[in-house]
C-alpha cells in the first residue's frame, strides 16, 4: 500500500506523521515489536488458525457434497488471502478493512451483480434449478411401482436407530437391505437361533410389536437398487419401485421407457415431448437475454402497471419528504419559544412514532384504518374506504408515513433552528422586516441549507420504504388488468418483492430482478446528483 499523493503538509506534525507512516511501511517502526510480543502473537495465530480451520472445513464439505469448482476455488483463495494479509507486516490498512469488506462483497456486492445475471434468465418458480439438477429431479420423480415389479417378503431389523430389512425375493434369495443398498445375506455375519436369523451384520431382528412402534420410520426407509428403490408396502411385504424416465447424455434427450415417449430440451428450459403436447416439471433456468426488459417495456399488461408504480414511487417519496419537512418546520417553529412550559416533555412525546418499531405500527394503522371496524371511521362517524379505494389508499400511505417521519424532521429542524445566528434576526428587525418575510428570507433558506443532506437521504429512504407500504396496504388495491401483482400503492421495491415472492405472480425472479435493476439505476443516478449536497464529502481528505 502506498500513501496518498497528497501535497506535502506544511506543518511539522504532518511530516512527522508521514515519516511514521513510511517507517510503518518499511517495518522499521517500533510498533512492529508487536510481532515479538508473545501474547499478541499468540492471539493472532489462534485467530488465523481458526480462520484456516474454517476454510479447510468448508472446502472439505464442498468437496464431499460435490460442490461447484468456483466455490471451492474462492474459499481457498479467500483463506490464502487472509493468511497473506495477516502474516505480512506491510498490509496495515487491509488488516483493518478486510473483515467488513469480506462480508460486504459476499452479501451485498455479489447479490447486486447476481441480480443482473438473474434479470437475463427465466429464473422463477419451476425454473429454479440448473439443468443437471432438473434431470436428477425428473429421474427421481419418475420412480414408481410397476405392475410387474418384484415383491419381497420383508422382516424388520434394527441396530439402534439404523433400520434394515431382511428381504426374500421371489426366487428365495435372501438379502439385507439398508439405506446404503442391498447385500446378499450369505456374504454377511449372521446369528441364527432355531433356524431363524436373529442378527445380520450387527442388525437385530425386531419383534412385530417393536417394528410396529417404529412403523413411520420403516415406511420412510428407501433401499436403493439399480434404477429404483425398495420400500415397504406393509410390515411384511416390500416392493421394488423402478425408475421409468432416463436421460441420455449422448442425445441430450429424456425417454420414458413405459410409454416410449422421448422428451427434447426446449429453449425455455423444459423437456417437451417430441409432439409438443407434454412438458415435464421441473424445468431449469436458461439465459433468455433481454427478454425480461423487453417484456417490462412492451407488454401492455406489464408496462402499464410498471409505469404507474414508477410514477407513484416518485410521488410517494416526494410527498413524504415534503410533508414531513413542512410538519417538522411548523412544529419546530411553534415550540421554539422559551415561554412554553414543558417543552422537553412534548418533544419526547412527539418522537414516540419514530421510536416504535415500524413493522408493528404499520400493522396497527392498518387496523385503525379498517373501513368497517377501524377507530378512525368510528370517531369521525364516516365510512371512508381508507385502504380499499385507490386514491384513498394513496392518501393513507402518505398520511401514515407522515406520522412515521415527522418526528425525525422535527428534531432535525429544531436543532438547525437553534444554530441560526441570532444577529441575523436582529439585523432584519432593525431593517424593519416583518415576521413572514423574516421566515421566508432568513429561516427557510438557512434551514434548507442545513437540512439538504437529510432531505436527500429522506427522499432516498422513502423511495424504498418497504415496511410502510407493504405492511399497511400490501401494495393494494390492485391495478386492474395487470399481468403481475401490482397495486395502486406499490413502490418499486414492494412490486419487485411481490413479483418474486407472492403466489399468484408466478414467482417470476427474472422479471423481479429486472425491476430491481431499474430501481438500482434510478437510485444510483439520484445519489450521484445528490452527492453534491452532502457536505462531509469535502472533509474526506482531512
Amino acid at each position, binding site marked *: 500500500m502506498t500513501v496518498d499523493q497528497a501535497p506535502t503538509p506544511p506543518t511539522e506534525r504532518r511530516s512527522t506523521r508521514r515519516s511514521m507512516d513510511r517507517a510503518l511501511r518499511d517495518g522499521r517502526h517500533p510498533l512492529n515489536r508487536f510481532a515479538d510480543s508473545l501474547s*499478541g502473537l499468540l492471539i493472532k495465530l489462534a485467530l488465523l488458525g481458526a480462520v484456516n480451520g474454517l476454510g479447510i472445513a468448508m472446502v472439505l464439505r464442498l468437496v464431499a457434497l460435490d460442490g461447484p469448482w468456483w466455490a471451492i476455488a474462492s474459499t481457498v483463495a479467500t483463506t490464502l488471502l487472509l493468511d497473506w494479509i495477516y502474516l505480512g507486516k506491510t498490509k496495515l490498512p487491509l488488516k483493518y478493512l478486510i473483515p467488513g469488506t469480506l462480508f460486504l462483497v459476499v452479501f451485498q456486492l455479489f447479490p447486486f451483480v447476481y*441480480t443482473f445475471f438473474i434479470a437475463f434468465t427465466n429464473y422463477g418458480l419451476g425454473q429454479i434449478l440448473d439443468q443437471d439438477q432438473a434431470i436428477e429431479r425428473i429421474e427421481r420423480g419418475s420412480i414408481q411401482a410397476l405392475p410387474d415389479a418384484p415383491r419381497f417378503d420383508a422382516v424388520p431389523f434394527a441396530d439402534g436407530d439404523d433400520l434394515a430389512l431382511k428381504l426374500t425375493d421371489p426366487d428365495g434369495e435372501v438379502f439385507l437391505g439398508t439405506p446404503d443398498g442391498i447385500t446378499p445375506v450369505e456374504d454377511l455375519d449372521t446369528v441364527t437361533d432355531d433356524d431363524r436369523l436373529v442378527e445380520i451384520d450387527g442388525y437385530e431382528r425386531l419383534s412385530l410389536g417393536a417394528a410396529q412402534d417404529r412403523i413411520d420410520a420403516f415406511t420412510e426407509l428407501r433401499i436403493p437398487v439399480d434404477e429404483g428403490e425398495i420400500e415397504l408396502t406393509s410390515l411384511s411385504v416390500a416392493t421394488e419401485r423402478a425408475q421409468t424416465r432416463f436421460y441420455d447424455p449422448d442425445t441430450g434427450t429424456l425417454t420414458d421407457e413405459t410409454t416410449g415417449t422421448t422428451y427434447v430440451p426446449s429453449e425455455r428450459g423444459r423437456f417437451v415431448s417430441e409432439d409438443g403436447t407434454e412438458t415435464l416439471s421441473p424445468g431449469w433456468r436458461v439465459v433468455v437475454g433481454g427478454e425480461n426488459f423487453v417484456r417490462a417495456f412492451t407488454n401492455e399488461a406489464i408496462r402499464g402497471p410498471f409505469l404507474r408504480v414508477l410514477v407513484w414511487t416518485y410521488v410517494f417519496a416526494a410527498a413524504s419528504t415534503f410533508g414531513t419537512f413542512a410538519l417538522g418546520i411548523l412544529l419546530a417553529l411553534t415550540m421554539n419559544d422559551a415561554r*412554553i412550559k414543558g417543552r422537553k416533555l412534548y418533544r419526547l412525546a412527539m418522537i414516540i*412514532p419514530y421510536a416504535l*418499531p415500524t413493522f*408493528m405500527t404499520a400493522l396497527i394503522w392498518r387496523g385503525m384504518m379498517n373501513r368497517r*371496524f377501524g377507530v378512525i371511521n368510528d370517531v369521525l362517524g364516516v365510512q371512508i374506504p381508507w385502504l380499499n379505494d385507490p386514491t384513498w389508499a394513496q392518501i393513507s400511505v402518505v398520511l401514515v408515513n407522515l406520522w412515521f417521519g415527522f418526528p425525525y424532521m422535527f428534531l432535525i429542524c429544531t436543532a438547525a433552528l437553534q444554530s441560526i445566528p441570532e444577529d441575523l434576526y436582529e439585523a432584519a428587525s432593525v431593517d424593519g422586516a416583518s415576521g413572514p418575510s423574516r421566515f421566508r428570507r432568513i429561516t427557510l433558506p438557512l434551514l434548507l441549507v442545513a437540512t439538504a443532506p437529510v432531505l436527500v437521504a429522506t427522499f432516498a429512504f422513502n423511495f424504498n420504504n418497504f415496511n410502510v407500504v407493504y405492511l399497511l396496504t400490501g401494495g393494494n388495491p390492485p391495478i386492474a388488468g395487470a399481468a403481475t401483482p401490482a397495486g395502486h400503492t406499490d413502490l418499486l421495491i414492494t412490486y419487485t418483492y411481490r413479483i418474486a415472492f407472492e403466489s399468484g405472480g408466478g414467482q417470476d425472479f427474472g422479471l423481479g430482478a429486472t425491476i430491481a435493476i431499474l430501481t438500482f439505476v434510478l*437510485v444510483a443516478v439520484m445519489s450521484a446528483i445528490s452527492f453534491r449536497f452532502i457536505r462531509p464529502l469535502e472533509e474526506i481528505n482531512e
Partner: protein
Amino acid sequence: MSASTPGTRPTAAATDDPVVWTAPPRPPLARRATRWFRDLGWRYLVIAAALVFALFPAVWVLSAAFSPSGSIAAQTLIPDPISTINFEQLFATNFWRWFRNSMIVAGVTSIGSVFLCALAAYAYSRLRFQGRRMSLLALLLLQMLPQFLAIIALFLLMIGIGRYFPELGLNTLAGLIVIYLGGALGLNTWLMKGFFDTLPRDLDEAAHIDGASHAQVFFTLILPLAAPILAVVTLLSFIVAINDFIVQSVLLTDDSQYTLAVGLYRFIDEDYGARWGPFAAGALLAGLPITVLFLYLQRWLTSGLVAGAVKG
C-alpha cells in the same frame, strides 16, 4: 419589538421588558387574552393537535392490548373490564420464541457490525493509503442502495449456500446475521470515522513511541475512548435489525425460526379481525423495550447528524 418573535433570545427581550411590563394602564382582559393567544395560545393548540396525532395510535394499541375481547370491532377506548385475556392468547403462540430469535439476530448483528465498522473506521481515520477516498465514497453510494434491493439474489444465494452449508442457509438465524453483517459498513463507518478523527492523534503517536503496536493502540486506546460512538452504532444497528421485515420474511420459513416482525405479521395477517387484541398485546411487549432504548438514544442520533450538517 415584541419578545414573542420566534427565534428571539429571551435575553434580547430583556431590554424591551420595562416597556411592556411597567407601562400602565393595563389593557382590558379581552385584549390581553387575544394577545396571549396570538403570542402563545396558538402554539399550545398546535402542540395539542400534534400530540394527539403522535400519540393516539400508541394509546389505541395500549387499550386494545387490555381489551376484554380480542376482536377489532369490539374495542373501546377504555377497556371495560381491564383484561389480560389477549396476553394469554398471545402466549399460546410462539411469541417468546420469536422474541428470543429477534434478540439473538439483532444482538449478534449489532455487536458484529460495530466491530467491523470500528476496524474500518480506524483505517480510514488513522492510515493513508491508495484508494482511500474512492472506497469511502463507494461506501456512501452503497448506503444509498440498500441491500434488500437485491432481495431476489439474496434469496437464491441462501438457497445455494444452504445446499452445502445448511447451518447457514435459508431458515436459519445465522444466515440472517451474516446478511446483515454484509450491510455493516456504510454510513456507520462515516459516523465512526468522524468520531475517531476528533480523538487527538498525539495520543496514538505517544503510544507508538512508547512501543505500542497498532493493534494495541486500536484495542486499548482508541476503542475505550470511542465508547460513546460505539454504543450509538451498536444500538442503531440493533434497532435496524429488529425493524427489518423484507429479508426476514423471505429467509425464514418455519414458525419456530420466525422473528418478531415475521411472526407477528403472519399471526395477524391470517385473521385480522379476531387476532387484533393478542397482536396489540404482542406489539406492546415487543415495542416497549425498543421504544425505551430509542428514546434514550435519540439525542445522540440527531446531534451527530446535525453537527455534521449545520456547521460551517
